[in-house]
């Protein structure tokens, strides 16, 4: 393990602070502190070597297929990065006048328009800084709506297959949670749902297609049940890559939805972020959207904040501008036909990979998938689980799938190849999976002790949690 603090030795730092030639304005010592000893003293060349060597210990999508289900690790076009680092955008101060930021405001305005077309919705806010932030915003919109109509609806329904951010967002807004079961075929259990919807139901959140990679065959029926009850239907667009350009969330019956620009629209994930989680809504919800909003009047764009029914502000400024700049570029490069090609290819790739694996691995829900699918470790020798399989995948130069999620399938492996993989790579990955199964029976130790060829061996996550060491001493 290498850490920058270990390389420190007095006198090596390369940094030179520009000389101040004016008067020295003393600030009383009761206000100042001495931090010089807190920070490492290293030279620039050491710093570069440190991080270049660290970077080599990272797997990334530019290296190989990254089939992390529901994360949509597609290729990130390089032109995105080039344009997002243009000083005309990066050096723009968020408090500058609207007259001098017309270019940026136009991009925001137009991207909102494109996202309306893509979703079929009537209003979009780009402000949320991530998908979960978008969810939180969406649930706030639900809360505001019923506050305005004067109805005291305090419950939101979520399927048992939902991503954890759904229930967490609901809880942060003070709603009660009801969990609806999924059928063995992966749809929402309509019968149970029927019994759950009542006068307290503010809404329901549903990922579409679901976290099982399957499209709910009753989606319109669910929408109708909710709407007949005066409840709102929230669409989690984490898996929008499956229907991009092919079908619109508004047409599925959703009232509110969020998108993940860092998944569907090719912005890189940065080893954790930043993302962007725009929220789109139907006409009746537009008035609740957060501020500031970009308004176009007489060919001029401006930020406006004066909307009486808004939920208010949700970000320090106007969201992750450099992220939506990249999404804007992506949409312009692809156009309507290119976006449709994305979802069709993503779905084709996933189904092909599934076809290569379904006879070798347990396939718990036997339906054709959308952009991702689930298999698990059932049928493996006792003691070898999804955990070991995923570590062994790393040895073969691929990233592991999403594991142990969704919770409704035991020891799930959720595989999402995305549209930017070629056929040969899918076949190579399938071969690896089949080889690992063979190893599990013939040479189980090699699977149990995996990984072997990675920059480090298996990390002890139990020790990390039992005795947390969260900073360098």
């Amino acid at each position, binding site marked *: 393990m290498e850490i920058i603090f270990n390389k420190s030795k007095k006198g090596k730092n390369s940094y030179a602070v520009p000389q101040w030639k004016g008067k020295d304005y003393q600030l009383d010592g009761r206000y100042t502190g001495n931090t010089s000893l807190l920070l490492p003293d290293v030279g620039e060349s050491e710093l570069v070597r440190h991080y270049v060597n660290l970077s080599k210990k990272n797997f990334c999508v530019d290296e190989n297929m990254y089939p992390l289900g529901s994360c949509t690790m597609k290729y990130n076009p390089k032109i995105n990065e080039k344009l997002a680092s243009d000083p005309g955008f990066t050096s723009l101060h968020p408090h500058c006048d609207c007259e001098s930021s017309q270019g940026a405001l136009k991009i925001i305005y137009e991207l909102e328009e494109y996202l309306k077309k893509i979703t079929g919705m009537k209003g979009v806010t780009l402000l949320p800084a991530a998908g979960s932030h978008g969810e939180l915003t969406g649930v706030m919109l639900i809360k505001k709506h019923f506050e305005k109509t004067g109805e005291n609806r305090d419950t939101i329904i979520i399927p048992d297959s939902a991503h954890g951010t759904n229930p967490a967002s609901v809880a942060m807004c003070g709603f009660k949670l009801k969990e609806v079961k999924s059928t063995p075929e992966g749809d929402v259990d309509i019968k149970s749902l029927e019994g759950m919807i009542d006068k307290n139901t503010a809404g329901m959140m549903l990922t579409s297609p679901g976290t099982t990679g399957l499209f709910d065959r009753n989606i319109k029926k669910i929408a109708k049940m909710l709407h007949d009850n005066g409840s709102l239907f929230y669409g989690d667009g984490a898996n929008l890559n499956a229907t991009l350009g092919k079908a619109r969330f508004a047409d599925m019956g959703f009232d509110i939805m969020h998108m993940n620009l860092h998944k569907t629209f090719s912005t890189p994930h940065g080893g954790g972020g930043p993302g962007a989680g725009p929220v789109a809504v139907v006409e009746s919800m537009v008035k609740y959207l957060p501020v500031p909003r970009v308004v176009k009047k007489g060919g001029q764009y401006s930020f406006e904040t004066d909307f009486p029914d808004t939920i208010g502000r949700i970000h320090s400024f106007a969201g992750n501008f450099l992220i939506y700049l990249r999404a804007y570029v992506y949409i312009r490069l692809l156009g309507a036909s290119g976006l449709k090609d994305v979802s069709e290819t993503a779905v084709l790739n996933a189904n092909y990979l599934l076809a290569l694996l379904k006879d070798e691995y347990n396939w718990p829900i036997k339906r054709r998938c959308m952009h991702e699918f689930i298999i698990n470790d059932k049928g493996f020798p006792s003691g070898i689980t999804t955990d070991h399989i995923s570590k062994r995948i790393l040895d073969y130069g691929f990233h592991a799938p999403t594991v142990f999620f969704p919770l409704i399938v035991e020891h799930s492996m959720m595989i999402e190849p995305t549209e930017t993989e070629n056929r040969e790579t899918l076949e190579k990955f399938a071969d690896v999976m089949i080889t690992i199964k063979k190893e599990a029976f013939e040479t189980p130790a090699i699977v149990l002790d995996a990984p072997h060829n990675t920059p480090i061996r298996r990390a002890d996550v139990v020790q*990390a949690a039992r005795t947390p060491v969260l900073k360098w001493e």
Partner: protein
Amino acid sequence: MDANKGREVKEGYRYTDKHEWVKAEGNGTALCGISDFAQNSLGDIVYVELSAESGSDISGGDVIAVVESAKAASDVYSPVSGKVLEINSAIEDSPETVNKSPYDEGWFIKLELADTAELEKLMTPAQYTDFLAAGG
């Protein structure tokens, strides 16, 4: 592999469908904890936070603790009602005790039972064994 690993059911205890146990000590007091099945399902327990406080009155079904493993977390509920006499802080300091000894050293709280009849409503070891066999 030991087929019974993580499924031990101890005689003399009563069980809930959420995999807690209670063991009457004969003098109106009882110990509570989680079953072998529960500790095994959670995996290596990394953290226990006992939220029940000594001296407080609790009802059956109240949360008495949170247990965390590296990949899961779960609330622990009191199987019965009563007054909390003692909490086992030792498991907060070394949570692995719950994995190693779920029925003995890994107990969570000691209660003065409000109503010993409540015990009768819980599963017997035989019933709990069947409950586990049926998929828990």
